[in-house]
């Protein structure tokens, strides 16, 4: 059955706290994610680079990808996919939306 389940959205911060084309670290309990502002479009991925744990929130954004500041691994923010096939690890992405200037992230486990 194709039922639409209501997602649980967690209010995180004011959207303006994430400046354009930059990322910010968001700590939610034991989880650390990086949220990015692609000129008004907000996307969230796991913060730790699967390569050596670098903080992706501190990476430079290039189009819809982010480059890890430690060793230059690159990930697609839309899919969590590594840009080079030589890196096998995907990052988890988190549904993100903005309503009335507040940034919401859905931290629920992936179905």
């Amino acid at each position, binding site marked *: 059955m194709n039922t639409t389940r209501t997602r649980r959205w*967690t*209010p*995180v*911060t004011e959207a303006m*706290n*994430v*400046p*354009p*084309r*930059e990322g*910010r*670290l*968001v*700590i*939610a*309990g034991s989880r650390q994610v990086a*949220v990015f502002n692609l000129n008004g479009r907000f996307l969230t991925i796991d913060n730790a680079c699967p390569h*050596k*744990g*670098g*903080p992706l929130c*501190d*990476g*430079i*954004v*290039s*189009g819809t990808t982010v*480059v890890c*500041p*430690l060793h*230059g691994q690159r990930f697609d923010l839309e899919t969590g996919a590594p840009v080079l096939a030589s890196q096998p690890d995907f990052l988890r992405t988190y549904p993100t939306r903005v309503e009335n200037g507040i940034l919401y992230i859905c*931290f629920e486990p992936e179905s």
Partner: protein
Amino acid sequence: MKPRLVVVGNGMAGVACVEQLLKRGADYEITIFGDEPHGNYNRILLSLVLAGERPAEEIILNDLNWYQNHGIRARLGVKVCAIDRQRRCVVDEARGVTAYDKLILATGSRPWIPPIGGADKANVHVFRTLEDTQALLAKARPGLRAVVIGGGLLGLEAARGLQLRGCTVTVVHLSSVLMERQLDATGGEYLKRKLEALGIRVLLPRQTAALLGNGRVEAVAFADGGHIEAELVVIAAGIRPNIELAQQAGLAVNRGIVVNDYLETSDPAIYAVGECTEHRGQTFGLVAPLYEQGRVLARVLTGDRSEAFTGAAPAARLKIAGVEIFSAGSIDETTPGVEVLRLEDPAAGVYKKILLKDGRLHGVILVGDTSDETAYTEWLRKGTDLSGMRKQVLFPPHDPDPGLEVAELADNDIVCGCNGVRKGAIIAAIHQHGIRTLAELKKHTKAATGCGSCGPLCSKLLRAVAPDFEEETRTTLCACLPFSYEQLREIVRSQRLKSVEEVLAVYGNRKGCEVCKPALSYLLDMVWCGEHEEDRSARFINDRVHANIQKDGTFSVVPRMRGGVTSPAELRRIADVAEKYNVPMVKVTGSQRIDLLGIKKSDLPKVWADLGMPSGQAYTKGVRMVKTCVGTEFCRFGVQDSTATGIELERRFENLYTPHKFKMGVSGCPRNCAEATVKDLGFVGQEGGWQVVVGGAAGKTVRKADLLITVATAEEALEAAALFFQYYRENANYLERSYDFVERLGIEKIRKETVYASPEAKQGLLDRLARSKAMAKDAWQEGAQPVHPTQFIQIEVPEAALK
């Protein structure tokens, strides 16, 4: 009485023929009619005028003085409306009658407008004349949605020109292959990808059905039903020869005015050259064959029929920086007996296709790398038998004697056909202006500034003639921006671009990457000295938070300790900070400073405040430190005051940014305890003065610094240092250490342009350094005044919100 020669058409082909006639000393009374109201100009360069790379007045080939000096009657802005062949005269629109003994038709061509509705709406343009170009320039502005109909040579150059003016450009092309007359499907696909990487949208195959809009164009509608918005439309769908005049006069015409191998029409007194002609069933749209026609006709008109025009192998080159395309000969691989060789490197964007017939070159397509263009052109022209050198066909061997081609040319031979520059004139200019590079040659002689095909030959000429020849290095920044650092500096300055986003939107792919964004940030800062828009998103994390990121994501903090001299009070504060923030490691660095390692980003502002010391810039491409020895203050061997001088040196340059990190050292005597000779800049004290040395290294490579100058006083040493420092800041490529920079340019050149430069040039360097210094401030001030509320802050979601 002299025979009367009348030329109808003041374009490149007609005037080139007249120039050849003058060169041959022909004795005619010449009249030239031209529709356009100005002197003869280089139509090929209009795309560069549109792109803003060339002012309009620079593409004038012959100004009005030229006509006067050669006794030519110029009837400019006057249209010829009829030829009376019986009475041998032409009639112009002012009812003037001009008699001729010989008549040359050089009426050229005009843009072809496909039969689509709405082509007469406002803001629909063609791109053919200087007036068309000026009209486009008047309308083009950043953000304007422009659509170019036609993905041929001219259309693509127009598209890039408009894009460089800031327009958002879409190219719509009828065929599924761009430049399909010059490229095959694969080549077209490579080209498409390159254009898209530049940010030009390409729609293929798309047939335009109509231009929509109320009075002025608002959209382009396609035959398949779709449409796109358009505020400006350029139609570049091809050209048609202007044959009406010839047709009305009863001359033989087909698609063009029919000419034989001597450029004669069906009337023995009338000749034709240029884009209006049809020769052996072929019409023309590129400049090289038209010059050839002009040369042959000039011979014929002076009674020399020893040479005939036998047609020309087509050759075309796209003039878009970063998109190298060359195509020559016949590229139809279905021709019987044709063999095809291919090379593809998709990652590098390089595609080569070579067509051979009977062991000889038949055609060639080069995409992405056109460096072998000259070899292929020669093989085509000479019909070289390649059957014995099969392996080298894809990679032509480099000329064993590069000077031979130059030696074979006579001084009077034209090297640059577009601008009519002769070998002799180039050699004279090389000596007169001390030209060393192709760029300088272009500036002084205009050679190689037209279609560019003589560029390789000009380089050979330079190599053979110029005493200090420098090979042009064509390193581009990255795939996002197909320009060299030097070009980018020029672009940023001349186009007055002041933000990374702007540069990327207009000249790049709109995305940028971790390579070009920091480089552009540096460039803008250096060029505009703070008048630009600082964009932290384009900076590496170290320059967003002014600390050095470590392997675990924490940061290291190195306060400035000028000349490595500190005090008990400072040391006490450092110790207190280390304890208060549980700093895991405190380390003395190699540059006589103290490093606090393992600090959390969110603690940085507090750590800086507690330290009360300025940033040591240990995390950035900027001024690091001055390492000093104790010098005369305490050392019994010291002959100069190295600590005081080192501290002053550090004060003068601190807080400034450089293409790569910049380390300095000052030693008080030749024992050189501060290791000044392996620093980017060093002072070595000696009896009665200082040696100023530059370009030293003790890192990945070890290099002993070169002596810049020897001076008597510390103040003179500081001035020499300032000259070199600013010169490096302005001229080095981003991420080029001073030791690579000094090796690349050579210390002699650097001396000439810094310490031995003219007083004005020196003052310029010092003034620009002073301007930057006046704007520079201690980056750690951002601890108290962050540029963004969350610059150092991580966002924590309250427990309650997570439940």
